[in-house]
């Protein structure tokens, strides 16, 4: 049940445009979805890509890709750009007969001869609508075992292969391949992968938009769940998912971009290598190399880079925090939230007294290190507190201030469009006691909140 879309690499919110004023054929056809567009494009030998506009319910069938001359991609929220993989990938599948990339230099660096030229190398290959012998690009019209090749412009070297790699060795896998972002789209048994953004033939919850950091592009092999190898759902209705055969890297098995810590943990705690071995509530952890009381697949030998030693809390699957299987048969897993988080805030650069209402220093960054927005500016955030409305608050430049008497200290609007305000990289001055909070209001009135029907409570019981 392969989808016509499987031959395409798609990007959301992007449109491909032709820059030149030359007349270029663009066929526009009505279509309700990308799959329809893919079927239309695949039926045409000169169609290499399409723009699907879901608002206009139409597709533009294009005879070029983003690798062609005079093309530009631009953002368009209503558009999906899908390009044939053969024209986009820098690696090849099988023997590379379908490789349509733009490499035009051999592995030793010699420029390729144009296919339509018979000099310096005379040859019998000529361009057809389907064999892709255009320009002087590397191709494999005769099914050579070595992959794409070309005739060279050096008289004494008739032809040479282009050194293009097969997709399953182009990007190797470190550790268990959670960071694999290569282009293999078939399983170890040769089954074609199902696209992550389709729910057929297998329904699943790994929708790409739900897992933006897992690289669930098109139908490429990925490892979003901490499995032993990259895998995919297959297009075979009888085989739900299967591992992909991708070459392992020979370098030491290490996690890329992960900082190791022992006393505290950072972010998800994937790099935590400390020796805490009980859950938050004090239940001893099960050893990773044991299968009792809980059977599991996180065997230390399969996850060499995840530090699954003894019964220490670890995070081999990218969960919210370090965790372990517990020694209680009734409780399979539990977090180890008692492990402290490493300090995330940047170092304080100044101090304030009281609640910081009189702070008049020049610190202008938040506790996360984000630069403050000027109090007079209206972007990226509209400012309710400005020098005109609050002349007594000393709202100069973008310096941290406390115009609303916030009990948690000076703050500012931030230059991060996603964070309107935050507290600043300033701490209470040493020896400066915060005012006690103890207050007893005389009268309390609530509106609609905090009410419930306790009749239901009794019924539940």
């Amino acid at each position, binding site marked *: 049940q392969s989808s016509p879309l499987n031959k395409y690499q798609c990007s959301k919110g992007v449109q491909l445009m032709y820059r030149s004023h030359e007349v270029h054929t663009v066929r526009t056809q009505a279509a309700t979805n990308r799959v329809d567009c893919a079927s239309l494009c695949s039926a045409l030998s000169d169609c290499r890509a399409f723009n699907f506009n879901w608002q206009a319910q139409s597709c533009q069938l294009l005879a070029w890709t983003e690798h062609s001359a005079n093309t530009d991609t631009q953002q368009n929220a209503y558009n999906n750009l899908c390009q044939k993989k053969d024209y986009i990938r820098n690696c090849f599948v099988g023997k590379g007969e379908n490789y349509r990339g733009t490499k035009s230099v051999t592995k030793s660096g010699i420029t390729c001869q144009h296919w339509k030229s018979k000099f310096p190398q005379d040859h019998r290959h000529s361009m057809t609508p389907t064999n892709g012998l255009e320009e002087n690009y590397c191709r494999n019209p005769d099914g050579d075992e070595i992959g794409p090749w070309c005739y060279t412009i050096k008289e004494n070297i008739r032809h040479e292969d282009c050194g293009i790699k097969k997709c399953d060795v182009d990007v190797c896998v470190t550790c268990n391949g959670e960071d694999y972002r290569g282009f293999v789209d078939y399983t170890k048994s040769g089954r074609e992968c199902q696209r992550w953004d389709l729910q057929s033939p297998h329904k699943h*919850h790994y929708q790409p938009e739900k897992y*933006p950091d897992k690289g669930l592009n098109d139908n490429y092999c990925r490892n979003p*769940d901490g499995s032993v190898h990259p895998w995919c759902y297959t297009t075979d209705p009888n085989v739900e998912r299967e591992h992909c055969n991708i070459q392992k890297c020979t370098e030491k098995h290490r996690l890329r971009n992960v900082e190791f810590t022992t006393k505290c943990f950072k972010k998800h*705690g994937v790099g935590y290598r400390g020796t805490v071995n009980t859950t938050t509530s004090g239940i001893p952890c099960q050893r990773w190399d044991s299968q009792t009381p809980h059977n599991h697949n996180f065997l230390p030998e399969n996850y060499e880079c995840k530090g699954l030693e003894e019964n220490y809390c670890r995070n081999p699957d990218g969960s919210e925090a370090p965790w372990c299987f517990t020694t209680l048969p009734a409780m399979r897993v539990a977090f180890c939230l008692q492990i402290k988080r490493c300090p*995330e805030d940047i170092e304080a650069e100044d101090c304030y007294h009281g609640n910081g209402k009189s702070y008049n220093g020049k610190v202008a960054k938040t506790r996360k290190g984000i630069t403050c927005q000027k109090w007079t500016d209206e972007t990226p955030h509209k400012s309710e507190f400005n020098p005109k409305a609050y002349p007594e608050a000393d709202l100069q430049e973008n310096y941290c201030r406390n115009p609303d008497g916030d009990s948690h200290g000076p703050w500012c609007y931030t230059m991060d469009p996603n964070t309107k305000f935050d507290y600043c990289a300033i701490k209470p001055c040493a020896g400066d006691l915060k005012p006690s909070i*103890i207050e007893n209001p005389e009268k309390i009135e609530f509106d609609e909140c905090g009410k419930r029907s306790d009749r239901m409570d009794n019924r539940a019981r």
Partner: protein
Amino acid sequence: IVGGIPGNSPWTISLRNRDGIHFCGGSLVDVNWIISTRQCFTSCDLDPQGYEAWMGTLFIKPQANDPQKQAIPISKIFCGPAESYLVMLKLARPAELNSRVALICLPPEKYIVPEGTSCEIAGWGDTRGTGYENQLKVAKLTVLSNKDCKRVKENEMCTQPLHAPTGACEGDYGGPLACFTHDCWVLEGVIIPSRGCGKANQPGMYIRVSMYVDWIQKVMKMN
């Protein structure tokens, strides 16, 4: 919840990760906002796509056709002042209030809930074999003063220990300590991870919400 019984806590929220698995509790304080604890989240910069708040259901695995379940995506995460260990979660769309989904009041700013006030904790966390697995359980507790609850900071609060094991456990963190004041249920505390689960003769500990009401209201107003 260790001890306790199945009950009705219409402001208690089940936070679900990208795999749809319950990982922490929370409290609905506004149709667009939930309060939970920082420890439940990997980062203040976490991309919340795929995370959801489930409400209106009594079971941890509600049936697909449960008519009262609301599963609302979380659109933003805001971390509280450093020592607060609180987070505010903005919902992608407003919750619909009904008999199973209700708001809990915020306490007055800096209000100290008096010793002896009746409160409840609620959640779908571990029960330590005390029954009613996978159901929303509620346990009744009474406020203990900070003076009598040793070694707590001003931004924390306690409940009195009981002779039978009763209290919050794994999976309940971030959920409410709701106290009944002036005919309303008020979110006085947020359940935080601590050593042991509902141990007999040991007080329960929570973050004191009244210390952060100004921050909570500022976040709601500004976002």
